[in-house]
């Protein structure tokens, strides 16, 4: 019974916590410029994320170590220094973008400039992390985040053609702006497969003492949760495609993106959009912040855990506080959150091979996963993802310059 409850909570949490500033930005732009043509990119990215999340959870449940800890132990600091530095830099930028996204959500409702909301939001993030344990953080974010289902509801109310939707799941060449199309496809991948998600999920599995007996819960949560979560992302794209593309509105700001809710929700449009954007971004910001603490503590061997009294893990607490302060400093300068988002998703793609490669070794090392090693499908997927990731890593910066 408890496992079933865990499973349901896990799936619901995954849905509510899926959509954040990266997925909203990329899906909204994709829909407004290319209609349904990039639905396949969201589906593909979702599948990749599901497989990587399942592996992260399996690693944590069997080895009782998080992903970051496993990489340090298996590969040593020489290897880890590069992806660790890259991940921390990306997390800093993405956290600033999430805080900015939440601030813009409040601006949509109040009219007061988003920079005024940065510090109060930062304080709220810190207070949540100061007072809540892991389950409260994860489930709270997930449950409040269910407001993002409004994207799915909006798409449904607009009655898209099932045939046109189906065609969007088949990769096709665009009729215009091929470079921009390619850039958005790659960006969707970078926005979906965020590095922080993998370590956050594995850290959570360690915190909640997931065991080998619950591997089926892990697998089901990873695949079902990500599948449903991807549907929310698709809801953003479809709504944008149905409302903004016919008017040829290219999404360059969240104020423009909010217009996509008007036909479906009328007077409630802006409120719902602001809630979905704000809660999605806030939740992701909380996860990003605590993950920074997780990564630092796990790599350096400090005491860590959201379920520990904060004074018993002082370095862990200080680490996530410092990262939050640095991100607030970036956010308060007033960089456009949409631009920050697109830069951080591009950087994610650049470092993706370094993040995926360790899985190839760890998931086949009985010392870490005992007899739960990856089969041919898992290894084949990782090998393909590493190679494709390496090619995309080379292509993404020119694509960002030409099509971003």
């Amino acid at each position, binding site marked *: 019974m408890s496992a079933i409850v865990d499973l349901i909570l896990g799936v619901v949490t995954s849905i509510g916590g899926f959509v954040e500033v990266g997925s909203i930005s990329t899906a909204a732009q994709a829909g407004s410029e290319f209609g349904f043509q990039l639905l396949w990119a969201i589906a593909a990215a979702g599948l990749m994320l599901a497989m990587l999340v399942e592996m992260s959870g399996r690693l944590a449940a069997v080895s009782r170590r998080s992903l970051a800890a496993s990489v340090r132990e298996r590969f040593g600091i020489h290897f880890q220094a590069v992806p660790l530095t890259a991940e921390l830099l990306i997390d800093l930028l993405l956290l600033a973008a999430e805080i900015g996204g939440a601030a813009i959500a409040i*601006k*949509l*409702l*109040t*009219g007061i400039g988003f920079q005024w909301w940065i510090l109060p939001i930062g304080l709220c993030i810190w207070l949540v992390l100061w007072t809540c344990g892991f389950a409260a953080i994860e489930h709270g974010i997930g449950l409040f985040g269910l407001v993002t289902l409004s994207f799915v509801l909006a798409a449904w109310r607009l009655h898209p053609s099932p045939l046109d939707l189906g065609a969007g799941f088949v990769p096709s060449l665009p009729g215009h702006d091929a470079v921009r199309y390619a850039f958005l496809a790659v960006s969707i991948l970078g926005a979906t497969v965020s590095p922080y998600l993998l370590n956050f999920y594995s850290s959570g599995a360690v915190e909640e003492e997931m065991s080998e007996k619950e591997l089926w819960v892990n697998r089901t949560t990873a695949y079902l949760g990500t599948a449903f979560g991807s549907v929310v992302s698709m809801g953003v794209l479809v709504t944008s495609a149905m409302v903004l593309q016919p*008017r*040829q*509105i*290219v999404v*360059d*700001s969240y*104020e*423009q993106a*909010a*217009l996509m809710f*008007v036909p479906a929700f*009328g*007077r409630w*449009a*802006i409120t719902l959009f602001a809630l979905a954007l704000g809660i999605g971004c806030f939740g992701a910001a909380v996860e990003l912040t605590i993950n920074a603490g997780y990564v630092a503590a796990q790599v350096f061997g400090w005491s860590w855990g959201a379920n520990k009294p904060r004074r018993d893990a002082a370095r862990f607490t200080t680490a996530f506080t410092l990262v939050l302060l640095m991100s607030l400093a970036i956010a308060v300068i007033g960089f456009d959150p949409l631009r920050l988002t697109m830069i951080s998703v591009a950087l994610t793609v650049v470092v993706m091979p370094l993040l995926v490669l360790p899985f190839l070794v760890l998931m086949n090392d009985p010392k870490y996963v005992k007899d739960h090693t990856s089969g041919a499908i898992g290894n084949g997927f990782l090998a393909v993802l590493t190679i494709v990731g390496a090619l995309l890593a080379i292509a993404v910066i020119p694509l960002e310059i030409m099509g971003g």
Partner: protein
Amino acid sequence: MRARFSSLVSATLIVALAGCSRQDERLRQHRKHFESLGATTAAIGEAWLAGSVSGTYTLTALDQTFRLVEQEQTALASKPNTLIDPRGAALSQAAEKLLRLLARLTEDVRSGDAGALRGHLAEIPIKPSESH
């Protein structure tokens, strides 16, 4: 000698054509963004007239659109060649008109004058063409 001269002319033509097509692409992108911002202006105004969005959001969105038009105009002017091109000059003038219009629309919303706003929406100088 003649062959060398022909090669030189061909090379010059290729470079000139490449430059022209880059210019064409730049102008096309600028036009696309200005049309998008014109369409955004129309969408915001129509939503306000229909009562679908609050005055607070409308003013916020118009202000953001104003900033985006300014940014696009600055980007257009950053390459002097595009302003010399008649198409670029026309875009720059349309952007200027759109900025003034956005300021008028903002006043209309502040004063709650739906009639004036409706009239001003009809004056949006640059919007996507109907054929798209």
